[in-house]
């Protein structure tokens, strides 16, 4: 289905090397705004979301992971071995026709493959490269291994969060920095597209999730620099003494504030709520499956989930053909196992 010409990113082509949420859901937001997104994974390097809860290991599990499908619905899928020079040549052909590259690989991986940012910028001066990483491209902690919740600790959020004695991290069911970075990264790519419209130049965007976590506590950093202590307020709000979280008498909790109160919903209550069903946080793919929603509405250009999830490598041939590769070259890549529709090791870890 061709992208809707009326949408803001109609005609923009994105190559998505994003994994899990931070990279992949940033690309999804660009897709929802009308871009064409080609997700590239390798037969030996699938997005880890494919090997997640809820996919029966005795099946083609890589096409059945709910978390993967939820996040990546509507993207074209190419399964190409980027660890092999021939695979990387194909990626370069793809990038030649692309406007945006999004990646959240471990720092140094692309450079190791000869696809370092400086090389890519030289080859493709109009390309916008968005690198989403834990710590950023440089600095003494560049190679520090972190998940989202690690960054809550190192970014200042955990120290100020928690209703009890200990600082609290959100854990693997939220990994807050991985979620919130998508809202910012998609905006940064849009800003870079506007800048390219203005100057003709592409850009490299170095997005540190740890910095974003700290930025979202900016007032606390300014206060700390001025010598104001940073106490952990728990569930209280110094601006509204009536704010608190109290037991609801039925085994649950209730949030109260000046002039109002609300139940502390669990997932079941959220999923059953009318305000959730009529909102945009979770939408449906055309095949009826729940899909990652869109965090805003445009009144003149309705946004929607336009396509269901494609199978791994389902678009190999069409995408490679569009880069100008001949049929026999494509067949050669398939025969060599560099272009695939399943993982090289079909057994799950």
């Amino acid at each position, binding site marked *: 289905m061709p992208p809707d010409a009326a949408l803001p990113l109609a005609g923009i082509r994105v190559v998505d090397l994003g994994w899990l949420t931070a990279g992949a859901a940033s690309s999804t937001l660009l897709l929802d705004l009308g871009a064409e997104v080609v997700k590239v994974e390798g037969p030996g390097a699938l997005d880890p979301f494919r090997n997640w809860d809820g996919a029966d290991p005795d099946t083609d599990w890589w096409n059945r992971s709910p978390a993967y499908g939820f996040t990546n619905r509507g993207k074209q899928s190419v399964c190409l071995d980027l660890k092999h020079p021939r695979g990387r040549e194909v990626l370069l052909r793809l990038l030649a026709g692309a406007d945006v590259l999004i990646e959240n690989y471990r720092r140094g991986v692309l450079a190791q493959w000869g696809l370092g940012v400086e090389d890519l910028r030289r080859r493709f001066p109009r390309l916008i490269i968005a690198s989403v990483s834990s710590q950023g491209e440089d600095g003494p902690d560049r190679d520090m291994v972190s998940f989202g919740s690690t960054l809550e600790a190192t970014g200042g959020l955990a120290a100020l969060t928690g209703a009890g004695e200990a600082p609290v991290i959100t854990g693997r069911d939220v990994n807050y920095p991985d979620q919130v970075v998508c809202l910012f990264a998609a905006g940064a790519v849009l800003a870079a597209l506007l800048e390219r419209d203005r100057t003709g130049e592409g850009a490299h965007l170095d997005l540190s999730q740890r910095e974003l976590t700290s930025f979202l506590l900016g007032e606390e950093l*300014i*206060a700390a620099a001025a010598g104001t202590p940073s106490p952990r307020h728990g569930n209280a709000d110094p*601006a509204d003494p009536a704010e608190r*979280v109290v037991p609801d008498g039925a085994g649950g909790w209730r949030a109260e504030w000046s002039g109002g109160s609300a139940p502390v919903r669990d997932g079941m209550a959220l999923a059953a709520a009318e305000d959730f069903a009529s909102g945009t946080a979770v939408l449906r793919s055309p095949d009826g499956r729940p899909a990652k929603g869109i965090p*805003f509405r445009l009144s003149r*250009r309705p946004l929607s989930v336009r396509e269901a999830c494609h199978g791994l490598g389902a678009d190999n041939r069409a995408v490679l053909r569009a880069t100008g590769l001949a049929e026999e070259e494509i067949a050669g890549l398939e025969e060599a196992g560099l272009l695939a529709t399943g993982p090289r090791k079909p057994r799950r870890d």
Partner: protein
Amino acid sequence: MVAPLAGKRVLDLGAFCAQRPHGLAAAMAARLCAAYGAEVVRPLPAGGEPLATQPPLLPGGGSALDRFLNAGKRRGPTSGRFDMAIGDSGALEAQADAVPIRARISVFGPGDDPPMSELGLLALSGLLGIVGEAGGPPARLAGHQVAYAAGLAACTGLLAALRAGGEEVVDVSLFDVTAWLNWKVAAGVLVLGAAPTRGNARNNWHTMPASDGHVALVFQDKDWPALRNMLGDERLQAPRFATAAGRAEHRPEFLSVITPWFTARSRAEITAAAQARRIPIGPVLAPVELLRDPQNQARGFLAPDGTPGLPLSWNGARIQPEAADAA
């Protein structure tokens, strides 16, 4: 100079929003526009800047919240041509009717705007209920995460509308954004039939006390052998600790075995030992520690007064600091 919004004028109606979450979200969206090079005008009501009395307050007077959110903006009237405006429905109708692109902040969506707080939004979206220690109360995320996330979404929507051209209303629901962030809980119910709950056995990440504070104990199953070796306690070889489910089932015993190793060491020692084994453990750092953090210093992230730059390096450099300042 990088300035994607150079020449664009943005009207920040945050000070006229009827509710606090809306006002904070609008102020954040406008602040991002300022950082991207727009000229942002923030008119004030007769009572003055509502953020000026909001905590955290500064020892020398004034508000850190005001200083953070209004960096790079200037005060001024709503007269003149604007390209974009940000506010709630009332403020936009009253003061930005002729502005072609408007971001409209609401609780649940256009026209569905009951009285609400950020705490209430965390509660309704499930993001309050999922966070907190096992067996403990729900824990709200510190600061203004609900409003700021909505501000990030509003800015992204505005940039999209600007690129598309013409008129547009970008509707940002504070509730939708918060529930969108909390998708694993919602999707758990809808696609797997069960939602993760606070302190569930699978969610075995939490903070641990160290000799000088806390660290975040974050690891995957594949990291367990390396973590066990790092802790070096023979008791951890027991089969009941070999899996995440087993460690959850025997959680009090597990914690009693591992806690002394952590409390005997500093955050830096623990982090160095873990990182050498590629285990994603890190120190819990307070805001005052972030000011002199070597990573932040090396990347030029914070100004001397603690004001963070836009968390984005563009071709290896920060976007130039803003010229104006309404704070």
